[in-house]
Every structure is written in structure tokens, then in C-alpha cells.
């Protein structure tokens, strides 16, 4: 087991920069998830750690050693692929032991390791089957087993769950977490699914356009996003962004959303934003769960406003409501019993204690 470090890692394909200088420190035993939209460079980064892609610039270290030019087999890593990449002509046991057999491990030890990994993953009964005879979830387990028996320094997962249906994905997600709790191997996991990232990771690395947008624990990313990209990417339904500006009305700082709607800022927020120029174009970032139905006993910092709903989506435990504020689409989450109806007027409450203010041009959260 080992820590992994990336120092100004760059990947260029001809004239396209897929990865534009990444710095990342992954501690021993840590479960790191690289998340971002397709084409953000997350898979390339993972493949560079694996040694499947050459790096154009910078250094990659595993356990303190620079491995830039070390071939994959000598990096002591194991990888789980999106399509599992199980050898179709080998049984489950042969698949799992292939790497060990190539390294001429003693037969008894190979058997012991395979048995142990199979037990851990609950695939002992399948050990003599061929991949063709397995379901998607079982193949996924075998692919993980193949990684586990090697007992590598680092596990690399490349979108391992995206070929599974939604239900199985949730189940395997928990399975992967359990396995990591048992074996405690340093893990780098790539996904485009922010839910997977939030649920699995010790720390999440959000990537966009070949750069790291933000690194942090799931809670940090959720509550303190650094940029508009992170704020919009993490959380579902996504955060609303409403154009707004600051204005001083009678000594208090107000947030003006539309001609009709303006809210006084809570004291803590007012102090934080007071230094901003009043002319600056800003975006209010507010998550749907902080836009709820209005009720009698509102906490301080929660302000109400009236609007007309466009569409409502009953989800059972909540109802999503969609409406517009000066053309900006907004989504809120209200109680299913609050009486929200398509096309009907409704009074909503916005919790400004959980608001974010962003610079519209730079996308930086202020």
C-alpha cells in the first residue's frame, strides 16, 4: 500500500491538451474519486497513473518513487475496467490468478489468495465458470477479485459501474465500499456520476476541461463549492443560478433578483458580501432544497416570495416545482402536501443562510 502523488501532470495528444497540469496528493488507504463530465480528462489521468498512457509532462509518484517511465506491470497497481475486460477463455479462478501465474507465485499461495478474494466478494460458487456464464454484477465482482488477489499498492477503477443497471449499481457501490473498508488499499476511482462520487469517496476531485476544479470531502464540495462548475455538478437536482445584484436600501444590504423581488441579506452574509462593488454582475446560487413552501414560523434569514409554477413533478416524498424568475429557470422542493399545481400561483420561501454568491463572469464563488 502506498500514497500516490501527481505533480503538474500534463497529457497532450498532438495539439490537444487533454490534461493540463494536475497536482494531487493521495494518502495511503485513501479512497479518491475523480469525477467530471466526459472529456474532462479524468480517465486519462487514471490511465496515466496506471501507465497505460505516457505522460507528456510532470511526474507521477507511487509510494514515493517516480514511476513516469515504469511499465504498468512494475507499478504494482490493479485496475478494474468499465467493460470488466475479463479474459473470455479463462474461468473465474484463472482470470483472477492470471497475474500471479505470470509472476510464478507458488501454486498453494495462488489458490489461497483466490479463495480468500472469492470469499470476500461472495463468488466462491462461480469460481469454475467462464465469464460468458456470469451476470453483469458477477462479472464486476470477478473484475474486482482479479484486482484484490494481486494485493497491489493501488486500486484503479475506471467507471466500473456504468455498464450495470441502476439498481445493481447502487448495490455494487455499497459492495465496493465494503471491500475497501476490509482491504484498505489506496484507491483511485473514476466516474461521471456525482452520486457515486459523493457516496464512495473520502475525498472527491472534481475535474473539468483537463483541470482540477476542486478537491474536498463530499460535504465540503456540497456545502462549500469553489466554482460555479462544482456547485452545478454536485447535487441533484442541480443548484439554481439566478442573476442578481447587490443594493443598499436604508443601510441594509439587499439582494435584488427581479424588479419585484429583493431580499435583505442575513447579517453574517451581509458582512461577507459588503465589500463587493454594487455594479458587479452576480449569480445567486441556491439549491432546490433551500427553496421550499412558505409556512408560518420562518427562521431568520428565510425570505418569502410569490411566483407562478410552470410544472410540478411529484416524487413521492417531495414535489419538485419549476418556475421562472425573469427568464431564469428555477427549481424548488416542496412538501407533497403543500398544494403545488401546474400553472398555479404559490408562495415559496428561500433560505438565504445557505445561499452562494458567484461572480457571473469568472464563475468563482464569493
Amino acid at each position, binding site marked *: 500500500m502506498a500514497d500516490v502523488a501527481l505533480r503538474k501532470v500534463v497529457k497532450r495528444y498532438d495539439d490537444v491538451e487533454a490534461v493540463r497540469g494536475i497536482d494531487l496528493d493521495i494518502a495511503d488507504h485513501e479512497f479518491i474519486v475523480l469525477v467530471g463530465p466526459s472529456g474532462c480528462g479524468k480517465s486519462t489521468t487514471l490511465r496515466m497513473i496506471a501507465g497505460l498512457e505516457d505522460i507528456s509532462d510532470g511526474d507521477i509518484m507511487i509510494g514515493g518513487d517516480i514511476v513516469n517511465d515504469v511499465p504498468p506491470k512494475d507499478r504494482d497497481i490493479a485496475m478494474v475496467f468499465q467493460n470488466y475486460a475479463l479474459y473470455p477463455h479463462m474461468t473465474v479462478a484463472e482470470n483472477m490468478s492470471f497475474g500471479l501465474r*505470470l509472476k510464478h507465485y507458488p501454486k498453494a499461495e495462488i489458490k489461497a489468495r483466490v479463495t480468500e478474494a472469492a470469499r470476500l466478494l461472495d463468488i466462491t460458487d462461480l469460481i469454475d465458470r467462464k465469464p460468458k456464464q456470469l451476470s453483469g454484477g458477477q462479472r464486476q465482482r470477478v473484475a474486482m477479485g482479479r484486482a484484490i488477489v494481486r494485493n497491489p499498492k493501488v486500486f484503479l477503477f475506471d467507471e466500473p459501474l456504468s455498464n450495470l443497471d441502476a439498481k445493481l449499481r447502487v448495490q455494487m457501490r455499497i459492495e465496493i465500499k465494503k471491500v475497501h473498508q476490509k482491504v484498505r488499499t489506496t484507491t483511485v476511482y473514476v466516474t461521471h456520476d456525482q452520486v457515486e462520487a459523493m457516496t464512495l469517496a473520502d475525498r472527491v476531485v472534481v475535474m473539468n476541461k483537463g483541470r482540477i476544479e476542486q478537491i474536498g470531502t463530499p460535504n465540503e464540495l456540497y456545502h462549500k463549492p469553489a466554482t460555479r462548475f462544482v456547485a452545478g455538478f454536485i447535487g441533484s437536482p442541480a443548484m439554481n443560478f439566478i442573476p442578481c445584484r447587490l443594493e443598499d436600501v436604508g443601510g441594509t444590504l439587499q439582494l435584488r433578483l427581479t424588479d419585484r423581488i429583493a431580499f435583505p441579506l442575513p447579517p453574517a452574509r451581509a458582512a461577507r458580501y459588503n465589500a463587493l462593488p454594487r455594479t458587479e454582475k452576480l449569480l445567486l446560487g441556491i439549491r432546490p432544497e433551500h427553496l421550499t413552501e412558505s409556512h408560518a414560523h420562518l427562521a431568520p434569514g428565510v425570505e418569502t416570495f410569490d411566483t407562478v409554477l410552470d410544472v410540478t413533478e411529484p416524487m413521492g416524498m417531495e414535489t419538485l416545482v419549476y418556475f421562472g424568475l425573469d427568464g431564469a429557470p428555477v427549481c424548488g422542493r416542496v412538501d407533497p402536501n403543500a398544494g403545488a399545481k401546474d400553472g398555479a400561483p404559490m408562495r415559496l420561501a428561500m433560505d438565504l443562510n445557505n445561499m452562494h454568491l458567484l461572480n457571473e463572469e469568472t464563475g468563482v464563488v464569493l
Partner: protein
Amino acid sequence: MSTLAIDKAGPSRKVKYGSMSRDRAWALRWSYFFLVLFAIFFLTPPIYMLVTSLKSSAEISAATNPWWVFHPTLSNYVELLTSNQFLRFFWNSSIVSLAVVLVTMLISVPAAFALARMKFWGSTTLATGVFLTYLIPDSLLFIPLFKMLALVQDYTGITLLNRWYVLLFIYPTLTVPFCTWIMIGYFASIPKELDEAALIDGASWLQTLTRIFIPVALPGLIAATIFAFTVSWAQFLYPLVFTTSVDQLVLPVGITTTLIKGDVFNWGQIMTGALLGAAPPLIIYAFLMDYYIAGLTAGATKG
């Protein structure tokens, strides 16, 4: 009244439906009729071979119904299978074909692996070149090759002409391009992640080839092997040009040059020889038909 109307409607619908299935039944009957006609056309020569091979010279010269054997005899088979000369042809053909299969596989499988998986300078050009080579027919090359072999013989003193083993060098020019081409197709269809997994598991390029690619692409390998064997077995022009002594001949040339000699009534033996010569490919075809056909269609469907 109303029930009557329904009754009327029922059968009339049935008739309509029935007429459609009757159309199909007729289409099927016509299909079978024409298939039988074509089967007769396609199978007449081989069946006629068999019929003639069972006749004695006397029966052939008697000009009885040529399509029927009145006094079946295996004498032609006995005579050929105890003739040293014929066995020699058979032996030469077998050795040449099997050795060419081996040489072909040793050349084309590694090359196909490199061309399918390792992008290197000129790899696309080479792959196209391989395909083009496959289109160059034997009848374009036999004269310069003949002269080249003669020159090599003059300069080095190594006898190549009129020796069966020269075919081991020449036949691969016919088999290797196509086998490489279809193996490129089979290898390219293996997902890229599979060799990456092998790479991470610690396999070298060679181990990836022998332990992953060859087993996974085994159907393609079998198809290529069958192709190489049948092409070598059937090749006629090169051995006709390069070998002349009776003990150096392979089957197709041996039968056509030694059995067709003046005596008209030797047809029994000629047909027997031809049938025995056609037997190995036919037997392979009978048992491995699906691979055989996969190899045939792979050239056009896998490129």
C-alpha cells in the same frame, strides 16, 4: 340472422389469410424446386467422379449408361493406393500443405497482432500492402519466380527447381497475405481493455499474444488454418512450373500429368485419383464447415 352473418364473415377471413400462407407455400415449393436444379448442376461432376471411379476399364469402354455402375469394383482404389507413385504424390502434397500451414501461421499471426494492436510508423500502409498482395495472382508471378529460382541455383549451387521443398517458400506468398488480413480483423475485434488488463497483470507483448489473443481469436485462427491448407493443397500452377520429376510432384500436377497418358480407358483411375485428391479438403469442410465459411466471408466482412 346475426349469427349467420358472423359465420359468413369467419370463413371468408380465413380464406384470405389462407391465401397468403398459400402464396408462401408456393414460394417455398419453387425455392426447393430451383435449389434441387442447382444442386444437380453443382453436384454432377463430383458424383460423376464417384460413379466412374467404381467402374472397371472394360465397363467404361463398353459405353453403357455412363451415369450408372453395373459392376461396381474397387479395383481403381486398390490400384492407386498400392501404387508407390500415387502415394508419393499424396505424401508430397501432405508434407507441403502442412508445412505451409505452419509457416503461414508463424508469419501471419505475429504480424497481424502487430498490425492490429501496435500502431507504428507505416503500419497502416503495411496493412493495405498486405491486402494488395493478396490480390496479386499466381499467374502474374510464376515466370519471374521461375527465372529467379533458376538464377539462385546458378549463383549458389542450391538446387531449388524441380524440388518439392521450393513450394514451401512459394506457397506462403498465396496464404500469408489473406491469413494476415483476416487475423488483423479478428484481433482488432478484441476489446482494447483486454490487452490493457493483461499489461497490468504483468504480461509481456508475447504473453499477451500467446495467452490472450490466440485463445480468444481461436475461431479466426482455425479459419485461417483451413484456408492456408486448402489453398496449398489445391495449388496447381506453381508446382506445374517448378517441379517436373515424377517423385517431386504434388497431387494435382501428379494426377494430371501422369495419369492422362494415351490410354483412353484410364478414366476410372483418373477419377479415382481426382476424388482421393479432393478428399482431404472435402473432409475438412465436412467437419469444420462453419469455420471454413467464416474464413471465406471474413475477407469481405471483416476488413
